[in-house]
């Protein structure tokens, strides 16, 4: 470590300063002596370059290194690649036994892939750790450089050391005939016309433009940090919801976890007609969908929301035709078209209770598949709902159970009380669908349950007593409170990219010593453009130079 950091001009520099903060004389040679100067961060000492780093400083130093940042980027890149070898578990909905699935589908390699946790690469601890480390690196790298750079650029001295000028990448030296101050005075408007801010001091001049582009990279990093934080915090409860809900046509259904109800008024699928298809698709029997649309109405529950015995009071808040790229969006609650099912779903039936012996009818009642009442009174009889099975099946022990919550094969178990029946009542199972009645042998089950089927029956008299939902639309309901931050972060990144890449910070230093003009030029990118600009600046001042000859330290073949 170099301890004497005092420059010959008398300025006391911080440890690690490459170019004297005042006059620009090189203090530390990073390359070979005489080579073009290393102008990164204007030669200022980075914050991390301290004489005696303690533990925290060392962590800071680790993350402040661009080299470490590059390694982190490369590791993340390689990690991300690994995740694309086989499909990730997240791409399957409802994968029962992932380990077996990977083994079976992708062989031994798939098994190893799964056991290494690569089937869920992007949620693995190491991948998230890498992202967190990149985040830390972004913050620390930026802070470490931006403050010293800001200081260095805001207190620039106009007259720089001769060596600072002649070791820039754009250099011109040549004689001038007039007085130094006169020449500087003449140069000022020429530079101003090119958009430079000009500061002069005797026989020295500093012209500078577009300094703001220096902040581009740091703006990018700020945007990325906001983006990364937003992505990490999305995981917190309440900020994020992602549910797949089925909505049978014509029924307002509650969106789980919210006070909102959504009604699918009508679902439509259109296919391309044969005429609209290209030749290769015609007459192949292929159906190419053109449009999926759910006419949706969103309601908010205003009262009696949590009490199951009362009907919730709903207020319409939004109405939208949901299509694939046109979701319903209500204050951050977004419903996307996800899938559909065109098989009709039984919604309700209105059976009549019939006395099988006398043929007497005791009246009709409405049995709603999803929300049946707890009991029904029909003539002298009461039907108490004991249990309902939406997707009826008998398990291995011969007990009734439900395969799924979807009303594929609904069945209702009633306790019937009334005349001619035991006092404690008799059990009766009812399948509203005719096909299930036969399939599961309703009469046989009822015989086992107590033989009530000989006396009473539930019978649907007319088709008008059956209510079907023609189709079901599956919507993906999402809420993402972090999204505004994600978009803000990305917008800031883009701003930074444009600042940093489409503008360049250009500086030209001039000094005249005994009739000898020395010019040094520096830019962050595009030296080609700067050389061209210097030529066009010198020309009206009576100095003709060739673009190539300004190029310093190169073309020495």
């Amino acid at each position: 470590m170099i301890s004497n950091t005092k420059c010959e001009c008398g300025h006391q520099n911080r440890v690690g300063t490459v170019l004297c903060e005042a006059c620009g004389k090189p203090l530390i040679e990073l390359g070979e002596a005489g080579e073009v100067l290393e102008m990164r961060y204007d030669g200022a000492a980075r914050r991390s370059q301290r004489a005696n780093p303690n533990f925290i400083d060392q962590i800071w130093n680790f993350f402040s290194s661009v080299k470490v940042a590059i390694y982190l980027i490369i590791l993340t890149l390689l990690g991300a690649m690994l995740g694309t070898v086989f499909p990730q578990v997240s791409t399957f909905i409802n994968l029962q036994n992932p380990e077996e699935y990977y083994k079976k589908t992708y062989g031994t390699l798939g098994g190893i892939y799964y056991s290494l946790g690569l089937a869920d690469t992007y949620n693995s601890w190491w991948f998230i750790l890498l992202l967190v480390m990149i985040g830390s690196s972004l913050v620390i790298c930026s802070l470490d450089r931006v403050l010293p750079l800001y200081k260095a650029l805001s207190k620039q001295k106009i007259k720089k050391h001769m060596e600072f000028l002649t070791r820039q990448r754009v250099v011109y030296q040549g004689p001038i005939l007039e007085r130094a101050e006169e020449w500087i005075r003449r140069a000022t408007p020429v530079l101003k016309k090119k958009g430079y801010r000009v500061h002069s001091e005797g026989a020295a001049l500093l012209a500078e433009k577009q300094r703001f582009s220096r902040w581009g990279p740091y703006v990018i990093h700020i945007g990325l940090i906001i983006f990364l934080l937003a992505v990490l915090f999305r995981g917190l409860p309440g900020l994020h919801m992602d549910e797949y809900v089925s909505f049978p046509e014509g029924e307002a259904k509650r969106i789980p976890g919210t006070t909102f109800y959504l009604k699918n008024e009508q679902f439509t699928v259109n296919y391309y007609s044969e005429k609209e298809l290209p030749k290769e698709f015609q007459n192949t029997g292929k159906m190419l969908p053109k449009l999926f649309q759910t006419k949706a109405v969103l309601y908010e529950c205003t009262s009696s929301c949590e009490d199951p015995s009362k009907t919730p009071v709903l207020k319409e808040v939004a109405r939208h035709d949901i299509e694939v790229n046109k979701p319903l969006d209500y204050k951050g609650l977004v419903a996307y078209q996800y899938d559909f099912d065109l098989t009709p779903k039984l919604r309700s039936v209105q059976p009549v209770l019939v006395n099988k012996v006398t043929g007497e009818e005791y009246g009709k009642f409405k049995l709603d598949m999803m929300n049946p009442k707890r009991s029904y009174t029909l003539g002298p009889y009461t039907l108490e709902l004991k249990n309902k099975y939406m997707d009826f099946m008998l398990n291995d022990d011969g007990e009734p159970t439900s395969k799924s919550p979807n009303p594929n094969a609904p069945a209702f178990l009633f306790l019937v009380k009334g005349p001619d029946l035991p006092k404690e009542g008799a059990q009766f199972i009812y399948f509203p669908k005719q096909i299930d009645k036969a399939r599961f042998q309703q009469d046989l089950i009822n015989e086992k349950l107590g033989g009530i089927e000989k006396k009473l029956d539930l019978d649907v008299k007319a088709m008008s007593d059956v209510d079907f939902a023609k189709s079901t639309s599956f919507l993906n309901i999402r809420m993402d409170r972090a999204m505004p931050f994600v978009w803000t972060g990305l917008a800031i990144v883009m701003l930074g990219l444009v600042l940093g890449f489409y503008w360049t910070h250009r500086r030209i230093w001039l000094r005249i010593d005994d009739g000898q003009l020395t010019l040094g030029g520096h830019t962050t990118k595009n030296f080609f453009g700067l050389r061209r600009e210097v030529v066009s600046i010198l020309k009206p001042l009576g100095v003709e130079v060739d673009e190539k000859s300004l190029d310093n330290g190169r073309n020495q073949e």
Partner: protein
Amino acid sequence: MSTQDLLEISKQAFMYSFFLYCIAFIAFAVAVIGKSWRNRDPVRHERKWGRISFFISSVGLLGHLLYFGTRWAGAGRIPVSNMYEFMSFLSMMIMVAFTIVFLIYRKTLLGLFALPIAVIVMAYAAVFPAEVQPLIPSLKSIWLYIHVTLAATGESFFAVGFAAAFMYLLRTVNFDGKDKVDRRQKWWVEFTMFSIIMVIGFIVAVFAFRASGYQAVFTSQQITTDTAGQTTTKEDKVEYNLPPIVAPYNSKVESMQSFAGLDQPLLHAPSWVEGATAGRKLNTIVWSIVGGAIIYLLLRLLVRRPLGKLVSPLLKGLDPDDLDEISYRAIAIGFPIFTLGALVFAMIWAQQAWGRFWGWDPKEVWALISWLYYSAYLHLRLSRGFQGRKASWIAVLGFLVIMFTLVGVNLVIAGLHSYAGTN
């Protein structure tokens, strides 16, 4: 004008611009090589022929723009939604990027390298069916078009960056050197040449067999295990338009034309080559390697020296540092456009179409990988000793990453983007 007329004009314009690019390439070659011809002043010759070739390539670009405009009008939407349209658009943007960089730097030689890339990409586009296809619902979004067009624009600048970087390497690698470093550099330059020729090999093979109307059909049994662990067997018919070196896994020949005595497939794909068309994709890759190798060997026999060594003298007059800077500049121009197109707008679109701005779909991941790769490149350029040769190799490899993202992902990994369908 009717839709059919517009599409006809579009087709014609595509052909004309393709041939104009080829002619422009030859003119650029005359401009560069002709400098050493007798009875002429090299500077004047280059200036004159440089102008002529740039004029031809610009007319070609106008034709390409006409193709794009008429197809847009004819199809009623921006033509970037299948592989044919996307690759045509990409080659058009490569020409735009070349034109911009050429107008800044005026390096005639750049044309000699940028034009072949555009021509190859355009020929690659022609491999795919050119019909205007109707769109499935998820593709009907304005964000999609902005996403695809901007991403392709960014990638075109990377392509020009690649061309300049490769020129830098051809200019600086010591082809007569005998030490280890030189030999390794030479080998990799040659390998890059071979990779480019492999793409040409693929295109030549496809067009040759298409012209001869080659066809072989296989039926293959697909055994799939669904998520519940149930296996189903399905019979698929796969049509090959290239002679089957590799037949699909577990397949039978239904019909097969004989080619050069080959009337049975040479090999069958191993079982891990999944999916109905995977066997065909593998066959295509094998054919590209075979075709590339044949063309490469013929060229080597013809010129009797490594191709890198053949080309490098053309670059003698160029300043390597300029090439390095052009490469850096092109990538620096492309990077923000790529970020906006391939990531930001992709996220906006994904948010609209699928309700999530990011889903770790392979294509998305590879776009991220490309982005990380080029950001690593930009950071590396800050360090000492990474300008010049190392940076050029990174830029050359970067284009491979981009190409893998565009084509390889569809060939090797299928995901949500697979409707962009490759053969």
